[in-house]
């Protein structure tokens, strides 16, 4: 077992290989660092169901310079999460976790003050909400109160069905996107090709966008925030796209439970 799997992420690991390549093996794609097969943190064989994903992961490894910056390797990290399932989550757990975000979906919460911000929210968020309604044939209203909005049962059902249609890999990617955007609706906007990652991130940060226009932008904080979010959400979107059933060469289930 190579040393790096058990190295705590606080210790910087030196780049110990020259070249990362991919290898196809029984429908899966593995990554080789020079001659050695890449493994997950718990020692499992690293393998992904999609060729472009494998190539992008090899590129992550080839992009490292002197030290391995694992916090920048989102695709590798997401893959490790699927393969190792460190939190022992079932598909049901993941779907439930995602649906939980619907109640607190960013674009459902509207303010009335200040009026300029209320207007901005309406201009930017309402079209996306309208798109969700018509695209999925569901009812969903925003709220201005502190209480969570009423989510009609059918709406939850339809979205739950959509999530269930994702295979294990795409599901993990989707969840990562929702977590970072704090919104299912915005993530659906990305995966359904309504929004670019940049636009979704901007919509997710609308309040901050509004505040920085008034009070000024601090690049080492605000811009860093944007770039971090964008890199993560983009990784999530790519993960979902490349691992979807019609893209991946195989859709073996990784998680054993049936739903």
């Amino acid at each position: 077992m190579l040393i790096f799997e058990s190295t705590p992420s606080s210790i910087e690991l030196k780049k110990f290989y020259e070249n990362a390549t991919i290898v196809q093996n029984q429908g899966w794609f593995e990554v080789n660092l020079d001659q050695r097969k890449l493994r997950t943190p718990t020692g499992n064989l690293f393998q992904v169901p999609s060729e472009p994903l494998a190539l992008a992961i090899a590129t992550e490894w080839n992009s490292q310079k002197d030290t391995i910056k694992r916090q920048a390797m989102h695709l590798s990290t997401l893959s490790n999460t699927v393969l190792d399932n460190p939190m022992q989550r079932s598909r049901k757990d993941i779907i439930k976790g995602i649906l939980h975000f619907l109640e607190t979906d960013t674009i459902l919460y509207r303010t009335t003050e200040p009026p300029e911000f209320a207007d901005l929210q309406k201009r930017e968020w309402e079209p996306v909400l309208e798109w969700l309604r018509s695209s999925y044939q569901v009812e969903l209203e925003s709220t201005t109160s502190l209480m969570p909005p009423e989510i009609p049962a059918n709406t939850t059902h339809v979205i739950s069905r959509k999530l269930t249609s994702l295979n294990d890999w795409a599901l993990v990617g989707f969840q990562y996107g929702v977590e970072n955007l704090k919104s299912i609706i915005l993530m659906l906007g990305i995966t359904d090709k309504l929004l670019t990652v940049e636009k979704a991130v901007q919509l997710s940060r609308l309040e901050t966008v509004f505040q920085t226009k008034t009070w000024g932008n601090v690049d080492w904080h605000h811009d860093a925030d944007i770039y971090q979010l964008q890199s993560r959400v983009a990784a999530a979107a790519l993960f979902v796209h490349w691992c979807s059933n019609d893209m991946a060469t195989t859709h073996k289930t990784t998680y054993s439970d049936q739903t």
Partner: protein
Amino acid sequence: MASQQKLNLGRLLFKRLHREMQTTINSKEKLVDTPAFRYIVSQFKEHQVTSQKLCKGQNEVIMVGQTYLCMLESLRKAEELAQRYKTTERTVQESANLVGLQVPSSSSVDNK
């Protein structure tokens, strides 16, 4: 959308992807020889504008390409910012000294 517009969009995207990958990958071999870049080239070639058909394929290649470019660019810019504003965290001693104070030589908190 005029197919010429799409062609130009595709070309621009391809150029930016090329530039971004050139900067980010550290490899002895030329970028055009790497499997990752060859894949991108094949995707663009496969969905070239030849006629009115394959619109969906083109759109998809462009969207995925833009998303991947977004990821690469954002990672690079985040790293540049981190490098520019890199500082080491001050110790408690240094922080105290900033305002003319001294850390006490022995802590009174641990007295049990």
